[in-house]
């Protein structure tokens, strides 16, 4: 095994993380190579130095009590949030469903009218006016038309229009 490869694997070797085959090769190399041997000693010494200078602190005696309070607080906040979410769901979900249904009905009727008109026009242009009237009636758009002249509604509308005009006053 070459020195360059051994040097790279020395750290894992000293940490006991090298595979069995690698361990064997590195061990035999270290027996014969002085510089790699020195490198291994330096790394080992570094490891010992790092461990010797390890600083350890003790937790405060109230660590668990403080944590317990934090947990109780967090759980309380979570319950409030869950209640709020539940209330919103009670209103939001049915409201959304209703809105989607209404929009769907509206789009469907508009789409149906357009498709029906297009088909009718393409088949028989002369009867397009009849088809258009049927579509208006199905959507009750004919309610926006003026009253026929002879009807009660037509007479009433005429009277109101007259009374409002400058000549009628």
């Amino acid at each position, binding site marked *: 095994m070459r020195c360059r490869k051994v040097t790279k694997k020395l750290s894992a070797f000293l940490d006991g993380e090298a595979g069995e085959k690698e361990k064997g090769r590195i061990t035999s190399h270290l027996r014969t190579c002085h510089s790699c041997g020195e490198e291994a000693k330096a790394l080992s010494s570094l490891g010992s130095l790092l461990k010797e200078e390890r600083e350890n602190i*003790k937790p405060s005696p109230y660590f668990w009590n403080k944590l317990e309070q934090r947990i109780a607080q967090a759980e309380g906040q979570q319950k409030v949030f869950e209640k709020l979410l539940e209330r919103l769901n009670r209103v939001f979900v049915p409201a959304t469903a209703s809105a989607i249904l209404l929009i769907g009905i509206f789009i469907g009727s508009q789409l149906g009218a357009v498709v029906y008109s297009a088909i009718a026009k393409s088949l028989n242009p002369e009867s397009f006016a009849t088809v258009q009237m049927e579509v208006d009636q199905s959507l009750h758009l004919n309610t926006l038309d003026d009253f026929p002249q002879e009807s009660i509604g037509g007479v009433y509308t005429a009277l109101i229009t007259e009374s409002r005009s400058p000549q009628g006053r």
Partner: protein
Amino acid sequence: MDETELILKFKQGDKSTFRPLVEKYQDSVINTCYRFLRNKEEAEEAAQEVFLKVYLSLDSYQPKSKFSTWLFKIVVNFCLNKLRDKKKSLSFQLEEDLPSPPEDQPDRSLEKEELKRLVREAIDSLPENQRTAILLNKYEDLSYQDMAKILDCSVSAVESRLFRAKENLKKKLDPYIEKDAI
């Protein structure tokens, strides 16, 4: 009751099993936080936050990996995020900032505290990923495989980080390393 039983009982609703879990790991969690944050009060505060996070997400823990691996992943991520937020200069101290050793004979009779400080500064001057690898390997005695799971990388990446970290530390601490050890 062993750790697995404690976690199982917790998932079944017995929250009192959380305390023995905390007592088992509080020392190592606090000390890991301390090695990252270098402040006792902050370390304890961070450990509290970590355990709170563990409590609130323990129901979703799956025993695909060891509990300690899962726990230390939370610890490391929390501490690194904390450091990034604070933008501490400890992580990126330049080599020149360390006191240079005397040219003739290295002074091996340094006070213990001074040597501790030098070691600490040397570790803190490493790039983030190398520092994390050294702290987990040398101070938490974690295997390369566990470290790979905690750091979300391969075992060879862990090996590479440790190799570079040790090369850097050897350069910085060369006068204080005994060459005839082993």
